[in-house]
């Protein structure tokens, strides 16, 4: 059945159904608002599925994430969920790490095994993060229900080796919005690490950054979501302008349509996020991450329908 609303996308060189694009934008925007991830790892494959060339899909998606994360950041800011200080430090680290990552990927491409390493890094990162988040949130959910039945222990547990290491670093400072105290070096170094991984994997890095904020920076989940969106906003502004300037692959019309759907979705997502408990959010995100990992793994293991692909995609 053909729905009557079609628009021609001049950069993608294809006509698309308006309602389908709005729906895709809304769905991915919803996830973005709930979990604080950019959604590029979902949106780009969905756009390719409906006939958008891979390079245009990735670049236009970055453009729409600018809008969705602006909307999401504002929604979370109103709820007091954005730690600007932490976000800026992570961003600085991310930009530096991204620059290093781009150089690493250039060297890997020259060696001829970049695609293999990218795919393996992707599956491993998604698998490790997904399994760890799932286990941790599941334990946390169970222990919180057990804690309601049992009294609290008389003495608090001894801090872990990681906590002692973080406390021993110089330049200690308060992050009042996140309610943590740590060295300025921590978000900077972790930002660099995520930036390197994101550049190698060719993604915005939201789904790596969120677990890093939760488990290594010990930020509360709701602040993590808002701060992650704030950071993604700047990353995607950079990507959009660079892609448009260097490759001419940003389809303005496609991005605008996706934006219409995703900004509504992001606002709804932010409200759903507020109603869910932190552990519930983490466990749903873990399932989502694991589902993407399984899909990628199957893509690597099963014989593809077509043994060639247009050059230029991810």
């Amino acid at each position: 059945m053909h729905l009557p609303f079609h628009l021609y996308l001049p950069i993608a060189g294809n006509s698309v159904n308006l309602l389908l694009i709005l729906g895709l934008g809304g769905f991915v925007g919803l996830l973005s608002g709930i979990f604080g991830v950019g959604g590029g790892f979902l949106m780009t494959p969905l756009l390719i599925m409906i006939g958008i060339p891979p390079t245009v899909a990735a670049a236009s998606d970055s453009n729409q994430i600018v809008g969705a994360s602006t909307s999401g950041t504002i929604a979370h800011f109103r709820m007091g969920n954005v730690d600007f200080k932490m976000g800026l430090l992570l961003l600085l680290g991310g930009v530096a790490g991204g620059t290093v990552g781009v150089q690493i990927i250039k060297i890997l491409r020259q060696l001829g095994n970049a695609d293999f390493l990218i795919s393996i890094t992707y599956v491993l990162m998604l698998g490790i993060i997904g399994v760890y988040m799932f286990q941790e949130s599941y334990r946390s959910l169970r222990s919180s229900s057990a804690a309601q039945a049992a009294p609290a222990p008389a003495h608090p547990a001894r801090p872990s080796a990681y906590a002692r290491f973080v406390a021993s670093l110089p330049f200690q400072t308060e992050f009042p919005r996140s309610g943590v105290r740590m060295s300025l070096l921590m978000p900077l170094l972790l930002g660099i690490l995520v930036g390197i991984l994101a550049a190698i994997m060719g993604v915005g890095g939201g789904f790596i950054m969120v677990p890093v904020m939760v488990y290594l920076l010990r930020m509360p989940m709701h602040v993590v979501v808002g701060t992650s969106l704030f950071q993604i906003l700047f990353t995607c502004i950079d990507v959009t302008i660079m892609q448009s300037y260097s490759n001419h692959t940003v389809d303005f019309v496609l991005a605008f349509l996706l934006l219409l759907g995703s900004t509504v979705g992001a606002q709804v997502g932010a409200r759903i996020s507020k109603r869910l408990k932190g552990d519930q959010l983490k466990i749903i995100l873990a399932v989502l991450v694991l589902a993407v990992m399984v899909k990628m793994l199957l893509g690597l293991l099963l014989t593809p329908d077509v043994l060639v692909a247009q050059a230029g995609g991810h």
Partner: protein
Amino acid sequence: MRRIKIMQWILAMIACWALWGLGAAQAMEVSIQPQAFEIGTFYNGTTLNVEGRVAVDQDVVVRFVGVPDDLHLKKKGKVLGCLWMNRGSLEFHDFPNVFLLYLPKPWDALGQADANDPHGIWTLGLEGLESRVSMEPEGEDKHLFFQELLKLKRKEGLYRQNVGSIAYGPEEQGARTFRASLQIPARLSEGDYHLEVYAVSQGRIVDSASVPIRARLVGTPAFIKKMAFQHALWHGILATLVAIVGGLLMGFIFGAGKGAH
């Protein structure tokens, strides 16, 4: 002597008449509408109508093809014996991005010519295309990757074969009319294409006509493409600003809505 000259003149006249008559029987008349089309904001494919007359003992094959160009591809292969991923590049030369074929009946029913006949109808189909394109690197299995490329193009809807898509009218003075409606795909870029009509008989091409078809971007799509390619930096900045304003606007709308309750 004069009688011989008159005889030669009469014979020449007869020969001209015979050749003219033969030519009239074989000459194909073709009319194509439209010969150019515009790709505007609401373009979702279009229809080209082909009409004409052809000798009653001939069939008609119609093709809509893009300009042959180079095509860069990634080929997939196994790593460590079990993981499928991109392994190396391929380049096809003289490969048209669009190839739509319209036949009145299956290939077999159009007759068979010698496989080496350069005017055989096989040259009109994918077999003929495969013989014309070249692939790099040369050591690779060209047939295998050509077939894989066809799968990709069919998935995109840019390579199609439509059997039974040419209708004939009644016979009249040794000729008959033909008509075909060509559905041009929505996934089409601005550029030059060719609509080719072939008269075929007993597996051979006996006549042909080719008309250039221009697909031209107009209106908003033309403006956006011009901006994206000629003012790329401003296009990127504008796209970013629109996204931010859109996000702010939606934030404001939702925020205002919340405040009203």
